């Protein structure tokens, strides 16, 4: 579990937040509205995890993942927009994945 959390901290969360919020959402919200930009960034974020081979392909797990990841993505978009910093989003995603890993264990 510690290895998984370390992976989330060092690679998964950091890369995802930097790309989906720091680059994609940030770029999109300069051109479109917050809602449009958040939808695009969140959809891409959810898609990245749904197509992840590590995600079990059971329907209820996929639906649950879509729901919670969409929620996380939207919240992180708002956090970045509100605070103008990636740190709150990083913390929120880290907490989310830590809880996920803990529950999985």
């Amino acid at each position, binding site marked *: 579990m510690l290895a998984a959390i370390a992976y989330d901290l060092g690679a998964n969360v950091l890369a995802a937040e930097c790309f989906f919020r720091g680059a994609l959402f940030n770029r999109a919200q*300069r*051109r*479109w509205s*917050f809602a449009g930009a958040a939808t695009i960034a969140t959809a891409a974020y959810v898609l990245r995890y749904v197509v992840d081979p590590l995600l079990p392909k059971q329907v209820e797990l996929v639906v649950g993942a879509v729901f919670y990841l969409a929620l996380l993505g939207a919240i992180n978009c708002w956090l*970045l*927009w509100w605070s103008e910093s990636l740190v709150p989003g990083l913390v929120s995603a880290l907490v989310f994945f830590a809880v996920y890993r803990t529950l999985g264990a």
Partner: protein
Amino acid sequence: MISLIAAALAVVTTLVALEGAGPSSLLRHVYLLPVLAAALRFGAGGGALAAMGAVLLSAPFVLPEIERSGLTTEAVEGLVTFAVLGLVGVMSGVLRTRAGRHRRRYEILVAIQRTLADEATLDVSLARLRAALAGRLRVDEIAIVGRDDERLVIAGGDRVAEGSLVARVLESGEPAFVDDAGGSVRARRAFATPLVSGEQTVGVLAVERKGELSLAERATLQAVGAHLGLALENARLVSRQRRFASELAERVSTARRELEELDRAKSAFVAIASHELRTPLTALQGFSEILAVRRLPPEEVTRLAEVMRREARRLGRIVSDLLDLSRIERGLEPALCRVPLKIEPAIEATVDIFRQGSATHLVTTECEPSLPVVDADPDALERVLTNLISNAINYSPTGSAVHVGARALDGAVAIEVADAGRGIPADALGRVFEPYYRVPDAAGVARGTGIGLAVVKALVEAHGGTVRVESAPALGTRVIVVLPACAAAIHGRSRSVP
């Protein structure tokens, strides 16, 4: 409010759990209350979040049922409840947001009307509007630009930079939106909309905000811009109308004062003219009776005849002046019989009459040699000179000199009559050529009808010439009459120039 909604959701969840009826519990409908409250308080976002919270809290009652027994009627009821909660939360929130937006728009319109209700200059009106709108539009920066003829009045800035958003909107008359006007993470949005009155762009309303500036808000800003344009135009028209009415009242008042003054002047004129006519008539009547009833020595007869001739000439001059004044007042020019006339003999002849008639002043003449011939009516010129010289004599102290001169100008002859008298006050100089006007304290100094200079001006202008007065109080007055020379004389003179 947030904690109240959260508490309500928690209470409902607890009650559903305690009831133990699962997804078909009737208490699940109570979730609608906090969801609706959140939607009405916070709009679409709040409604959606509250609905999501309700769904998450009731999910443990619905999802296990689906896992256990599949999509049973109860499970479907639970799923339908999710959908209803979501719809109610979002729809109510959207409606609430729209209603709020409409209310804000009406508040803005009322604020605009109230701000422009007072009469003020465009600069002041725009500054007040900017202050009134800044808080209501919830933007970071606001600027209002208004056209005042060729001038641009700006509230919230110093100038309109060339090529800027405002300049573009002013030129095109179309709204413009800049989705990224700088800023760190949250982009600054800028929007400018024209203030329209009829087909004209009378100004621009420009706003800037860090973050969202939605389509609906831009539509509101456009509506505000259109209303602002009309309101500004109305305020401008009302201001102009009031100014016009005020000017009209002022003019009517001035005209009435002038008419009253004219009426008084005419009354005074009638009295003075009667007196002026009566004086020579009395002299003529008296001396003619003496001549008729008495036998007098020839020298005395000659003296009386000379007095009668002088008085008859004076009477004739007054009558001529009155006739000319009558023509002037009817908008006609004095009748002239113009012939080529040498100025110097005409001046000398007129001055001689005064030299013979008055020993109180020294009348001197100085004319340039070879003055050009003028195209003038001899009688009119004599009356002009007589009026000017008699004025100079009447309004200068006994023993002082009156100087009459003439000099050639380019294509004209200037005649000057100067005295060393009391002069004319500066504020009266502009009015001395008005009919019936007399310098306020002149009545006590000399007799006069107040029409002499008016007639002089009319006669000179009828000749195509000009007349002007230069005067310094206590130093004297100089009247300069410029008459155009005959065309032939001009050519003759110009030919003689090497």
